[in-house]
């Protein structure tokens, strides 16, 4: 606004060259007036430091508003100029514009027309120069002349003792003037008629002479009038604003701060806070409260709400639509057909989601093609359904099963029970089949050992041994039908009397203990076994020192013919649980609760140690081939060991819910079985191939049920018929069952 105004004014001034004089005069007057004002300001600044700020602010505001007024007023003054009135004092608001005017005019004046007022001379010129620059700089009403002294607003008493009063702009010291003594100064003041107009400027250390106009202004101010004489405080009010037909306020200026009315209630609140702080109710701890870094993961959900673990992470804002999303983008956004084709080669994730299309008019834009789908998806959200159907792998569950041959192809195997052998009065603990399969022997905890005819289920022989039998075992040689029975600490060798006359004769000889052998034994403290003739039952009684848990027939360990016992020369860790002989080699298997050790009987050393990894081994059985071993455990697991493979189980079958009591292999059929306390016996197909590269095939075949539980015990023993695919099971319900194919 100001620039065109100024240029217009300059034009005016150039036209009215005749008025130069008046303006020069005016300029001078102005300068002097300014000096007066400045000094006045300084005084007020020194005297009333408190009120330095507020007037400034109000001044600013005033100026903001007065600017408008000023422009109006100015135009008025311009008019007066044009009319050629000899008016010296223009309103103070027009200062800056007039300054610019004076700039040009003074230059002209200095070069061209001479001055009537020559007293001031050069000094005045320099002063006017100074003031001009100052005025130029200060656009605000803080119209202080940049002081020559640069010490700033410091108490001047600091420089009382100094020779200088401060520093000029170049940083050089400004020397104090020679101070006249009082008398001289008095005389000088008496002589000087203008003395009353002189003021000492302490700051700059100089005398300032006030002009007549300045004095006038001072006088007016003292009277409490406006400083300018022609200022009419009572100008009739012109309502420039047309109230009638304006719909919107003209000014969009923000609400001025002076309109702010402090709230009574807020101040009351502040007072409250202050009191609370004084009383110590509100504390400002320096230390921020330490947040517990760990929180209760499994605590209540309610407590989980106020933990600060996961903060809300706002989703990234989507890009705003640009030109390409327009319905009619310019041609450079439209991909060519080649580009569209090239999208197809890209990965689906890299492909652009949106391909710009051109429609000549908005009418041609089709409906959003995914509208139905997305609405449906949102409906799914409402129903708490998953939006995307998870793509399941389309695999036939049957194909995931291991390829096992069908049970039909693996026949024969025992399936149904047709025969029962009843007669025992207590749980049948152990059974053993004769090698031809005509007889079975059973030992029960009622203290009897019985021999049964397999075919008819008839009990043909009973021995009352009077003590709970723990294990029975037939001699595998058919021509020596001897039954070994172990009970407590004793092992009985019983003559079953099933052979013909000659065999019986040889058996009787075999089972006779020569009396001289007993003293030999008693001499030797180390023998673990005593051989004692038992006439009552027609057999031999072997006295052990420890409880015998199981007995297994082989040709060697108890040398029947020599009536001697070979002590196993190995140290065992833990109690032996079950033993077995290798079917073809002279190896001996002993299982403790955890491990199974294989010993070579000829070399008398450990061959192998098998680690079962089960809780407690209950029984072991060896495949007739000799290279495979099954182990039943008390936690219901059945482990198959391939001895050539590793010392770890080849396969663990976790089939029984209760303890496995006995496992058994069939001698000729590829079958094995396990009997358990859950009153069932499981039959498996266990094919061992002669090809060493082929792993054994294990197929579960049948669960044989039928036994009743007695005191928590179920099927105590199971044995295969030596020649038929039949399984004998001995139950705690004192019944032996035969399962046939």
């Amino acid at each position, binding site marked *: 606004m100001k620039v065109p105004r100024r240029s217009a004014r300059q034009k005016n001034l150039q036209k009215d060259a005749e008025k130069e004089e008046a303006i020069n005069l005016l300029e001078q007057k102005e300068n002097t007036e300014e000096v007066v004002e400045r000094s006045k300001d300084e005084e007020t600044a020194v005297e009333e430091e408190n009120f330095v700020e507020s007037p400034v602010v109000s001044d600013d505001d005033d100026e903001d508003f007065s600017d408008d007024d000023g422009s109006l007023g100015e135009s008025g003054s311009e008019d007066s100029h044009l009319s050629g009135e000899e008016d010296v004092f223009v309103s103070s608001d027009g200062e800056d514009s007039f300054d610019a005017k004076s700039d040009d005019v003074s230059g002209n004046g200095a070069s061209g027309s001479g001055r009537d007022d020559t007293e001031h001379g050069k000094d005045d010129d320099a002063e006017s120069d100074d003031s001009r620059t100052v005025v130029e700089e200060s656009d605000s009403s803080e119209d202080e002349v940049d002081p020559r002294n640069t010490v700033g607003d410091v108490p001047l008493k600091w420089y009382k003792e100094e020779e200088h009063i401060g520093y000029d702009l170049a940083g050089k010291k400004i020397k104090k003037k020679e101070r006249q003594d009082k008398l001289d100064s008095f005389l000088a003041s008496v002589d000087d008629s203008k003395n009353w107009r002189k003021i000492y400027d302490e700051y700059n250390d100089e005398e300032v002479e006030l002009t007549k106009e300045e004095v006038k202004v001072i006088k007016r101010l003292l009277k409490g009038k406006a400083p300018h004489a022609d200022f009419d405080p009572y100008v009739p009010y012109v309502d420039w604003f047309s109230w009638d037909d304006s719909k919107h306020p003209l000014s969009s200026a923000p609400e001025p701060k002076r309109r702010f009315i402090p709230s009574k209630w807020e101040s009351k609140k502040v007072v409250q806070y202050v009191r609370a702080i004084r009383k110590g109710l509100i504390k400002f701890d320096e230390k921020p409260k330490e947040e517990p870094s760990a929180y209760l993961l499994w605590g209540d959900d309610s407590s989980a709400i106020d933990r600060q673990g996961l903060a809300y992470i706002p989703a990234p804002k989507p890009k705003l639509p640009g030109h390409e999303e327009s319905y009619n983008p310019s041609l450079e956004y439209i991909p060519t057909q080649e580009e569209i084709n090239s999208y197809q080669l890209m990965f689906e994730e890299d492909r652009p989601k949106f391909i710009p299309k051109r429609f000549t008019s908005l009418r041609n834009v089709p409906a959003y093609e995914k509208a139905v789908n997305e609405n449906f998806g949102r409906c799914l959200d409402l129903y708490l359904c998953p939006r995307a159907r998870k793509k399941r792998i389309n695999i036939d569950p049957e194909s995931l099963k291991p390829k096992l041959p069908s049970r039909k192809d693996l*026949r*024969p195997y025992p399936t149904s029970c*047709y*025969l029962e052998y009843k007669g025992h009065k207590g749980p049948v603990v152990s059974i053993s089949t004769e090698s*031809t*399969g*005509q007889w079975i022997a059973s030992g029960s905890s009622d203290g009897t050992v019985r021999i049964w005819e397999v*075919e*008819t*289920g*008839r009990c*043909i022989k009973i021995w009352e041994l009077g003590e709970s039998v723990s294990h029975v075992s037939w001699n595998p040689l058919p021509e020596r039908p001897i039954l070994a029975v172990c009970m407590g600490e004793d092992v009985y060798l019983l003559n079953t009397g099933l052979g*013909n006359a000659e065999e019986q004769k040889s058996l009787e000889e075999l089972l006779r203990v020569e009396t001289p052998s007993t003293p030999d034994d008693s001499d030797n403290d180390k023998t673990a076994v005593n051989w004692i003739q038992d006439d009552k039952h027609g057999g031999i009684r072997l006295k052990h020192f420890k409880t015998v848990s199981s007995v297994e027939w082989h040709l060697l360990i108890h040398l029947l013919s020599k009536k001697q016992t070979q002590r196993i020369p190995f140290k065992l860790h833990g109690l032996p649980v079950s033993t077995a002989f290798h079917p073809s080699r002279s190896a001996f298997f002993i299982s403790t609760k955890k491990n199974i050790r294989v010993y070579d009987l000829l070399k008398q050393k450990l061959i192998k140690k098998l680690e079962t990894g089960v809780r407690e081994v209950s029984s072991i059985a060896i495949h007739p081939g000799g290279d495979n071993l099954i182990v039943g455990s008390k936690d219901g697991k059945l482990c198959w060991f391939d001895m050539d493979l590793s010392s770890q189980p080849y396969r663990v079958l976790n089939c029984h819910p209760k303890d496995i009591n006995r496992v058994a292999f069939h001698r000729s059929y590829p079958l094995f079985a396990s009997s358990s306390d859950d009153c069932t016996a499981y039959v498996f197909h266990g094919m061992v191939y002669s090809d060493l590269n082929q792993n054994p095939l294990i197929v579960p075949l049948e669960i044989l049920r039928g036994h009743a539980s007695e005191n928590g015990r179920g099927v105590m023993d199971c044995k295969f018929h030596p*020649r*038929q695919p*039949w399984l004998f099971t001995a139950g705690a319900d004192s019944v032996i069952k035969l399962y*046939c*194919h």
Partner: protein
Amino acid sequence: MAEMDINGQVEEAARRVQVRFVTKLKPPFKAPPTSIAIPSNLTRLGLSSIVNNLLKAGKDDWNPEPFDFLIDGELVRMSLEEFLLAKGISAEKILEIEYIRAVAPRKQEEPSLHDDWVSAVDGSNSKFVLTGCYDGLGRIWKAAGSCTHLLEGHTGEVTSVCVVNPRVGQDGADQIVATASKDRTLRLWKFDADEPSDQIKRIRAYKILHGHNASVQSVAANPTGDMVCSGSWDCQIALWQASGSDTGDVVSVKKRKKDAEEEDPQVEEEAKSTLVGHTQCVSTVVWPQDEAIYSASWDHSIRRWDVELGKDSLSLYCDKVINCLDVGGEGSALIAAGGSDPILRIWDPRKPGTSAPVYQFSSHSSWISTCKWHEKSRFHLLSASYDGKVMLWDLRTAWPLAVIDTHNDKVLCADWWKGESVVSGGADSKLCISSDVCVL
């Protein structure tokens, strides 16, 4: 009249079939060969009552008699309508129904008690029943409850018995029987069946046959009665000379007991020959013809041995253990066998190219211990099982004709006796005789 009655009862309910009852039975059972219309939903019982009514019409003092009915050689076991539908026989023509007397025991004799399980029975001689018992004794029964002879000598359980010369000794004298035992011997006994006796006569074997290495399971004699064969747990079949002391090497053994001097000298004899081939216990041997012995074994095979060559001329394989075997039926060629499962199988060895059984009867619920063909009939046989039942079978139907369950334990042996009785012994130590079976 009867016709009218039945018409009145069921006329509105069922279709009618024109039938004519024919029979091969003798006159008292012959009904007039007129054709009558009967409702088609009648079962065997209904048909039987019609025939009884017809017969009653001819004869006033008629005792009702159960009949069985044959249409085109098959026994009617369902309603007439269903039967015609199943067989595709037209109901338009006059249907010829042959009726026979129902095969079922009509009378149960008092059980003959033994001291132990009855393991074997033979009724091939109509004058007596021979039983073997687990107490090691053989017994001769003239009738139910009347034991005449006690065969003493075995030291083990008697497993099998057979009458060696059922036809030779028709007069009763010099009757020879053979017993096999678990003591690995067979014994031959001679007695006079016709000899009237008030008290039980104890007899001793005249011949002891040694040679088996294990329990002898079965014994059979050839039709002429001069040879005996036996099967044993030692997997062998041994042939023995049965007829008396005419053989050359007779070894007379001194009797151990001095006081029994009146006894005949006992002869010990070795086997004439052995047939080797079975790999397991030979459970049954049958010798129906002079030249062929049939044997069944626990190695799941049935073999026919040529006696002269000593080789097997036929082997049938079943996948089960076979406990019993009999040869009979049509042309005395059908082989019936039962074993370690409840199915009675019948093979026809004359059928070429197949070894599958031609009939399978599976009404039993446990092992089959015995099966026996009827001597005269082509169709009838009996089977005994460990489930305590004896069943009578007709090849013309898949259902048992009759079930005899007088035993309350395993039935170990059964046989026909006199052609019209069934004798059976079991683990309840009883010999039961069910008579009046009316086969033929």
